């Protein structure tokens, strides 16, 4: 049986089709989910894609977080459903309090698109199990509000509990605290990531194919479950 991975489209989502393409490239079936539809249609995992949902008005992710589909995503996530939020999806997960902290305007105040080197700090999540811990990967980062911030206690906790999933190396593109590029919840099923692994699945159209392992990892987790 092929795993079915849902990709949510909010108004203003931009990377939904590319997330679906990455899901397919990993060997799963991509299922389109619509923000107004409260059902997850029995998918095995969910990706909240990047973009500018609701134009990033008010605060990034603040409006999408109240979409009908999010009730199901939140209850699913609490019950162990693997959820990956990429860029705007990460912002939505923070607004929905599935992940701690917030993403604010880049320290240099510009949108920045570049090929970013990262280390995978934790293989203990549903989305990174396929990487060796400490792996160096190059994945595009492209955002204007990607600077991860949280209070010191939360940051200490994230580090102590191994919940920092990825860190920027060779230069921090946005001023994120402690070079944090991605984090996980306690259980490791919910991951938020600022860089875009779905744009690093083929060297023809991205800087590498390093990002594909995020999507194959969740398949392994689903098969094992």
């Amino acid at each position, binding site marked *: 049986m092929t795993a079915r991975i849902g990709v949510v489209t909010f108004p*203003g989502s*931009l990377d939904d089709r590319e997330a679906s393409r990455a899901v397919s490239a990993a060997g799963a079936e991509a299922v389109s989910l619509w923000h107004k539809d409260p059902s997850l249609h029995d998918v095995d995992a969910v990706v909240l894609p990047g973009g500018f949902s609701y134009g990033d008005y008010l605060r990034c992710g603040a409006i999408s977080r109240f979409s009908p589909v999010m009730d199901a995503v939140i209850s699913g996530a609490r019950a162990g459903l693997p959820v990956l939020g990429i860029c705007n999806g990460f912002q939505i997960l923070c607004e929905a309090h599935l992940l701690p902290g917030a993403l604010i305007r880049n320290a240099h105040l510009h949108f920045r698109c570049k090929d970013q080197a990262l280390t995978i700090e934790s293989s203990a999540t549903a989305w990174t199990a396929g990487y060796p811990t400490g792996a160096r990967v190059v994945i595009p980062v492209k955002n204007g509000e990607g600077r991860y911030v949280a209070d010191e206690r939360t940051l200490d906790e994230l580090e102590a509990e191994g919940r920092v999933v990825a860190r920027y190396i060779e230069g921090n593109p946005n001023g994120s605290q402690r070079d944090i590029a991605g984090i996980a919840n306690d259980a490791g099923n919910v991951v938020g990531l600022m860089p875009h692994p779905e744009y690093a699945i083929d060297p023809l159209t991205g800087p590498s194919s390093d990002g594909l392992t995020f999507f194959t990892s969740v398949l392994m987790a689903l098969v094992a479950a």
Partner: protein
Amino acid sequence: MSDIDSVSRAQATPDLELPFTELGLKDDEYARIREILGRRPTSCELALYSVMWSEHCSYKSSKRHLKAFGEKVPPQAKDILLVGMGENAGVVDVGQGFAVTFKAESHNHPSYVEPYQGAATGVGGIVRDILTMGARPIGVMDSLRFGPADAADTLRVLPGVVAGVGGYGNCLGLPNIGGEVVFDPTYLGNPLVNALCVGVMRTDGIKLATAPGPGNQVILFGARTGGDGIGGASVLASATFEAEGERKRPAVQVGDPFAEKVLIECCLEIFAEDLVAGIQDLGAAGLSCATSELASAGTGGMRVVLDTVPLRDATLAPEEILMSESQERMCAVVEPGKVQRFMEICTKWDVTATVIGEVTDTERLRIYWRNELVVDVPPRTVAREGPVYDRPIARPADLDALNADDPRALARPSSADELRATLLKMAASPNLADKSWITDQYDRYVLGNTALAMPDDAGMLRLDDSTNLGIALALDGNGRYARLDPYAGAQLALAEAYRNVAAAGATPMAITDCLNFGSPEDPEVMWQFTEAIRGIADACYVLGIPVTGGNVSFYNQTGSTPINPTPVIGVLGVIDDVRRRRAIGFSSDADEIYLLGVTSDEFGGSEWAHVEHAHLGGRPPAVDLEAERALATVLVEGARSGVVGAAHDLSDGGLAQALVESCLRGGRGARIDLPAGLDPFVALFSESSARAVVAVAPDAAAAFEALAASHGVAFGKLGVVGGARLEFAGLFSVGLDEARAASSGTLPSIFG
């Protein structure tokens, strides 16, 4: 009697004075409106005519001359052009059932007044033009020109323009795949912001701006109409721009890219279900333009009830509703039986949609406000039969002196140390320096089909995952060359874009142009304009690539001083398999480096003369279109067969700059033997056209030489890729670190 200036009131008060001069109409134009209507216009009719007869909308000064494109169509056009000039954008058949539409447009004056919004809405407008053709927009490019990089006003304008291009395009989810950024004092008081958009559709999915079929419903959808951009077309785009920036700010539109993104998805779903008979976007001149153009191209009549237009500001007068340039709006003509489904899709996307009227067979555009007839005009007289001027033309009086000011008289570097210092100074000069500070603010990856983007020679997009069919685009201009000779300068711009597309491995197919000039009321500007058009038309004919459409921007000047004439040309190419694309970076050690083409002592309008001497004089490089075509053939065939590994066109800064860029991009040095018998300075910095540098694997060298020879392209072996230095044997060498520091330090040091 009501206070509405209705048609009946206009008939009853024939002598009432209307402020036509303030709206930009000349005495004779106003007289012509009276003659067409047989009475004085109502205030709404005056609004309609004034915006539609503005230079920006009517092309009244350029129309006569643009005919040259239609009179000199290359024979290849009939095989590839599905839609030609005159529609919102031209459409090219790229094979396998795909059609591509692309167009460049200027937003110069709004970007000077309000850099962020001006540039943002420039992107928004051109994207809607492409969408209107029935295509999914798939990429954007931008060609930007500013005053000197370190000038105070450039510091005001550039960051806002770049943030605006990025802010709008990024939020729409369109990759920005290339373009150009040029600094020159000529643009200090009049920057140029030209944006290009490209879209793709199936060949049977083309939509046109037409309103056929009486009884069909006219639906306005997208954003509500507000008070922004009123009179933008007539006031901003069609009058000489003086130091009145503050006062004109309300005439610049404000963009909402989120609204446009939703509108795009909504339109594409509507197109997929074949629900529209005709469609037009609302850009310059807003509803005036959309209703009169749709009616002109269709059955000929339309009835519109202006009270139904959804407003952001309920106090707007009917004249203002007609003239508003509020962004993110579209107007569709829909058969009555399809209206319900059309509305359902709009509801799905939370897009406001309202039936505002219907198509009639009356041959009149009739607009009602509060139950009074406020517009009753033949629509063609508004949209199609506006004034046409035959402006006086005069060759610039200073041109002979300018051409006689030969750059050969300028002091040239000769020692090895001087040549080395010149190379580094050139690499660090704002026009040649690394543009990452700008281009990193643009998302080049979104949509997942970008095979090449800046700083490569051309942008390249995959159209089809299964076949890897793709397109390449390059956008180039050179105002200095065009100042010295607008005929040759326009051809050189075209040749550079053509060469860039070929260097990437794609076959050039068609062009779009964005013609930026001073005031058409200046006979010397009109001469430059007509020469540039003649140059483009002639070059297109020789190269066999048709003009698909474009844009004319006049009145680019400060006081009475026009900008250097700046035709910017976009060339579209097709590549069967994007996996065979060629990048500029030297990527394999031991590859052999060849120079293709012939180098002569040509420094008129060159980057070297500009950087080292602030000099503009002499003649631009000679144009040889047959040589360009032969070179392009070698580049495309070399990419297809795999004998060419990397390719980079030679343009501003000559061979030295091309080598610096190819080394830095590939992270590899090179050892170069400059051609014997040529002054090293000329070999390094001349800007002779029809040249490129390629890297060839050693085992492909013989095949490559045979390929070049078979097309009659001169070639010479220059050296070998490898090491960490760019070394010119017997002269000097530069470490890659030093070259990179020179190239990448400039823009951040100025803009932060």
